[in-house]
């Protein structure tokens, strides 16, 4: 079906999320809680756009708005900018420690914010990290407590035996709120320390043992012998292909 985004006509399949259509078209809509791997969550509300169907116009979160009919979309109007600025002010009050939020705050020319309860806070509670942890099958971190006390943590705030040290949570975090402290040969995440295993090819440290075991289990293989880092694996596969092409 045909839809119009900021005056540009494009085709979208029914049920496709509006944000994804806009991205495909190259229209920039700011997001925080959206990640390709998990789809829209509608948590941060930054991706707000104006949808007009017939006579009716309304504001929707484009990441969770499925296209079901012919619509006209505007991604920036004075109204949207005003509301978005307000959302950014709220996010900034919650997570003033995040450089990404600070940038948005400056970009949208926000007025002076009221003092934040925690000036170092970086988490906006979008739960992308919880989704990532669940997707790798660890479920080591979840939302703890409720209301204003809600936070992301491991059970009892201790090192979780379920954590495999994959750092997927830190990787997907849009505001870099999850700290990984690295030292020679090991690293610490969520209060748990992991030894770094070295690549059998280049000798560079690259991952943790529990991580290797999880990958092996997910891919239905047994973890045996020397492990190669992704780069050395690529090289190995490449040379295998090259050798097979020699007549």
């Amino acid at each position, binding site marked *: 079906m045909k839809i119009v985004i900021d005056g540009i006509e494009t085709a979208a399949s029914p049920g496709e999320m509006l944000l994804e259509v806009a991205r495909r078209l190259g229209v920039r809509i700011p997001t925080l809680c959206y990640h390709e791997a998990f789809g829209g969550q509608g948590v941060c509300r930054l991706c707000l756009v104006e949808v007009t169907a017939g006579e009716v116009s309304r504001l929707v979160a484009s990441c969770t708005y499925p296209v079901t009919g012919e619509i006209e979309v505007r991604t920036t109007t004075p109204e949207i900018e005003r509301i978005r600025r307000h959302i950014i002010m709220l996010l900034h009050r919650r997570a003033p420690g995040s450089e990404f939020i600070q940038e948005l705050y400056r970009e949208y020319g926000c007025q002076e914010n009221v003092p934040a309860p925690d000036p170092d806070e970086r988490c906006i509670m979008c739960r992308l990290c919880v989704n990532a*942890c669940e997707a790798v099958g*660890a*479920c*080591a*971190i*979840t*939302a*703890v*407590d*409720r209301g204003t006390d809600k936070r992301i943590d*491991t*059970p*009892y705030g201790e090192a*979780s035996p*379920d954590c495999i040290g994959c750092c997927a949570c830190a990787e997907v975090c849009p505001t870099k709120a999850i700290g990984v402290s690295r030292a020679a040969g090991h690293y610490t995440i969520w209060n748990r320390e992991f030894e770094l295993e070295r690549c059998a090819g280049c000798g560079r440290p690259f991952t943790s043992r529990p991580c290797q075991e999880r990958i092996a289990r997910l891919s239905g293989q047994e973890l045996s012998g020397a492990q190669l880092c992704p780069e050395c694996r690529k090289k190995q596969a490449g040379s295998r292909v090259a050798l097979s092409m020699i007549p």
Partner: protein
Amino acid sequence: MAIEPQQAAAQRPMEQIVRRYPPEQRYLLAIMQDLQKEFNYLPREALGLTAAHVRVPLGKVYSMATFYKAFSLTPRGRVSLRACDGTACHIKRSQVIIDELRKCLGIQPGETTADGEFSLETVNCLGACAIAPVLVANHKVHAKVTAAAVREIIKSYGGRVDEPVGN
């Protein structure tokens, strides 16, 4: 880690409660309610046993246990005082009640007195808005509570209350 005989003995009643239910995720809440009722809080080992029984990661069980106000992760006192701070009670000045409880017991909401007698909590709504502000002491509902009534309630459960000066 080897399990001490003492620890094993302590786990038995927990296991009995957990095993009353089939090992399915949908019984998670019911199991935790029974555990809370039996022990007056959710012991750490009990959460572990529950998670293993219904095959749900401990993180999710912990998340639920901290979400519902009906659960407590630390032992509650002999007398559990739950002051409603829902919208209706809040408008009817529940803060006065909570402040009085704080002052009389010397604890903050979520804490238990050092002698293990009283624990204080605030809850979001008890569904008894018509009789706001509401205070529940060990499942007994006290309606339209005043600061003076708070002192009487504490005394009726054997608590010592210093009478306010000048009254």
